[in-house]
């Protein structure tokens, strides 16, 4: 990998995000149009039909695929691709958009992340069964598999996880486009019904519908769109062994994050992530995922997450605010949209447009997704010029 191939070559000049929620009365088309036209307006794209040269979409449950986006936005006569990479789907679509500009093929492209899981008729992620050996199994069941060993090794417990849920619920009350705006207490979290130990209801993110869109252009053109553009520092994806069959897994970390962080920090030139990163949006599909991510990203020492949680390190007022908009916890997780929604928050924060949840002097922001068994991690690092 050439670590310099991406850094500072591509700019985000416009972003949009539809209202996330149980959008019973909205189609994927409605959400895509809502997010894309906000992004057009934000970028000052007065003629998207001429200016957008390619479209990179991310969706895990598309009903039609690429045509869903092309039809909605009437973007024909140009490439439209659809990427899937579990929960890192939106981030991976963004990554291909960045590549397409960095290689010099296009000047300006659109990245569209969307999903509409609430049209499936199930509340929450469904239990899935595949194959003959297939267990009735749930994402909560997969992501809880580090808990027993981690708790025993480092003395953390459900109370530490609960504080993450409380933090994200608070942040979500300050984000206009979040689905859940409700303060909760540690007691609420601990007393909620168990979904999959150690996760109770409030340890799990909600299921929601959403779409988010980014307009990317090459750095040389960024100024023609706006002064406060945001530069892409790193885009990374890493797969790791399936933790369910990996013969040597230690159940103390999620390896995809560890692998992807190495790539991303090399690209962005980051040596001390805790000092150099100002804010992070991380994959809080479950509270434990956020806890492990603190450590797996090297934001704190392995085993020390619970101390940082207690000290408020990752709260909005802390040294390194994480999930400043309330994360998956309050936005829900329309899989393809989530990565792009995280970029939307980082973009707004870096521009100083995050209103009540604004973090002061943030110039470098990270976003993170973890998906599958989990086996895949997507990371982006963006910053001000």
């Amino acid at each position, binding site marked *: 990998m050439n670590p310099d191939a991406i850094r500072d070559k591509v700019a985000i000049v416009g972003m949009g995000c539809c209202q996330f929620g149980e959008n019973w009365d909205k189609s994927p088309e409605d959400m895509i149009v809502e997010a894309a036209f906000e992004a057009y307006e934000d970028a000052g794209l007065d003629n998207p039909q001429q200016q957008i040269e390619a479209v990179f979409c991310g969706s895990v449950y598309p009903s039609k695929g690429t045509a869903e986006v092309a039809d909605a936005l009437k973007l024909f006569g140009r490439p439209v691709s659809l990427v899937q990479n579990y929960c890192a789907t939106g981030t991976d679509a963004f990554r291909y958009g960045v590549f397409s500009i960095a290689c010099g093929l296009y000047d300006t492209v659109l990245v569209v992340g969307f999903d509409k899981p609430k049209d499936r008729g199930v509340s929450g992620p469904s239990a899935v069964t595949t*194959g003959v050996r297939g267990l009735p199994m749930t994402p909560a069941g997969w992501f809880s*598999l580090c808990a027993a060993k981690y708790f025993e090794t480092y003395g953390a417990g459900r109370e530490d996880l609960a504080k993450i849920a409380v933090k994200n619920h608070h942040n979500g009350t300050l984000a206009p486009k979040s689905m859940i705006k409700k303060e909760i207490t540690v007691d609420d979290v601990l007393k909620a019904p168990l979904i*999959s*130990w150690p996760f109770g209801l409030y340890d799990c993110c909600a299921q929601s519908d959403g779409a988010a869109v980014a307009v990317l252009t090459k750095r040389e053109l960024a100024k023609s769109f706006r002064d406060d553009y945001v530069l892409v520092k790193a885009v990374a994806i890493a797969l790791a062994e399936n933790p369910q069959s*990996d*013969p*040597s*897994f230690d159940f103390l970390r999620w390896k995809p994050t560890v692998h992807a962080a190495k790539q991303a920090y090399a690209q962005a030139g980051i040596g001390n992530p805790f000092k150099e990163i100002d804010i992070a949006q991380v994959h809080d599909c479950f509270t434990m995922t956020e806890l492990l991510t603190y450590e797996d990203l090297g934001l704190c020492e392995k085993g020390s997450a619970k101390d940082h949680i207690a000290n408020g390190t990752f709260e909005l007022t802390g040294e390194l605010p994480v999930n400043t908009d309330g994360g998956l916890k309050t936005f829900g997780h329309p899989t393809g949209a989530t990565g792009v929604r995280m970029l939307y928050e980082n973009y707004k924060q870096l521009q100083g447009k995050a209103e009540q949840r604004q973090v002061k002097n943030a110039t470098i922001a990270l976003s993170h997704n973890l998906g599958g068994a989990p086996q895949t991690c997507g990371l982006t690092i963006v910053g001000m010029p």
Partner: protein
Amino acid sequence: MVGITSHGAHIPMLRLPLSAIAGGGRKATGGSGEKAIANFDEDCVTMAVAAATNCLEGIDRAAVDGVLFASTSYAYKEKQAASIVAKALDLRRDVVTADLADSLRAGTTALRAGIDAVKAGSARNVLVIASDCRLAAPRSALERNIGDGAAAFLIGDSEVAAVVDHYHFIADEIIDVWRTDGQPFVRSWEDRFVVEHGYSDNVVEAVKGLLQKSGLGPKDFTKAVLYSPDARSYAGVARATGFDAKTQVQDPLFGKLGNTGCAFAPMLLVAALEEAKPGSRLLLANYGDGAEALAITVTEHAGKLRAKRGIQWHLDRRAELSDYDKYLNFRNLQPSEFDRRAGQGVSATVHFRDRDEDISFHGHKCRRCGTMQFPFQRVCFKCFAKDDFEQVRLSDKYGKVMSHTFDFFAGSPDPPLIVCIIEVDGGARVYMQMTDASPKEVKLELPVEFTFRKIHEYGGTPNYFWKCTPIR
């Protein structure tokens, strides 16, 4: 000499107190005691595999030449059970398999067929298994009487522990207990008619025929092992044939086990063999569409089988399920938001490709670096060697819990579903469910063994895989 060289049994861990059956506007007439009930993931096939595994402990499985499987409650009308059992037991591919079905007498008939095969020289070792999980209408008298269980015998010609010296068989036509195609519940005619003209007449005739044929009298037998439809009727048969019901008859285990259908007489025989002294003689009488009586002599090899998991071991291993609604749900007799049998079912081609992993529970061992892995891989996890593996049977190994969760969301009829990652002795990691366990006993490093179970019922068929269970 040909006879029983090994035996094993399986009684499901769960017990339904008979008092729990009362309710729904009915009076409590169940009396005291309990009955053994299959867990929601057990059926006659899984119980057969468990009993046979106990029977084959310490025995080279490659030596088994045949499997005879007896049951009245097998899920399929067309598709053999014995071949599933043989695959789960990881027996040779050229094993002879047959199902004996449709009669409560099928278990002892299979026993005779196995002995005949070895005597005739067409096989050296035949596994005979009887297993039943019959369904009676909820809160019926029959429901209180029946239980679930299995027994297995290995028939061979060396180090024989019990020899059948004499047989007498009766075939009879009577509409006493029956179940037609598509009906879930066993039905029966009025019980006094069934006991008098079905059970008693036939069994007494068979026993008397045996005594006459063999020249033996009741006093020549240490014990009579008598099938009984209920907790009382066997006493009449004992009286009519000259046996002392109080001292000479094997405890039929009503109040503990229940009538386990075609596995009942075979299970009582295992219980009798567990206690029998060398040289003692047993009378075994079974009933169903006629009757059969066997005179069995116990040899000096019987004693060494006592260490196996038999009837007494299983009776001592119990857990109560007193929630009758949950029991009905286990049997798919309770309307539910989530139908466990819904859906398209498994792909037959995927099943076909994965049989060695899913049914025989084989893992891969890398020939280059020795790393054990599950499921099968083309490229080694550790040294990345391609296609250089040997298959290793994992089902008879032990393992330990590496990680676990309790999933309340996974649609189990007995939430929470205990889901674990198990490290099998030797190294493979398997993501699997734990069964016959309470979340309270689950912890890291907990030692487990493996048990063949229904993993789900999608598509309305029993779909089998292995689960783990704490070693007891």
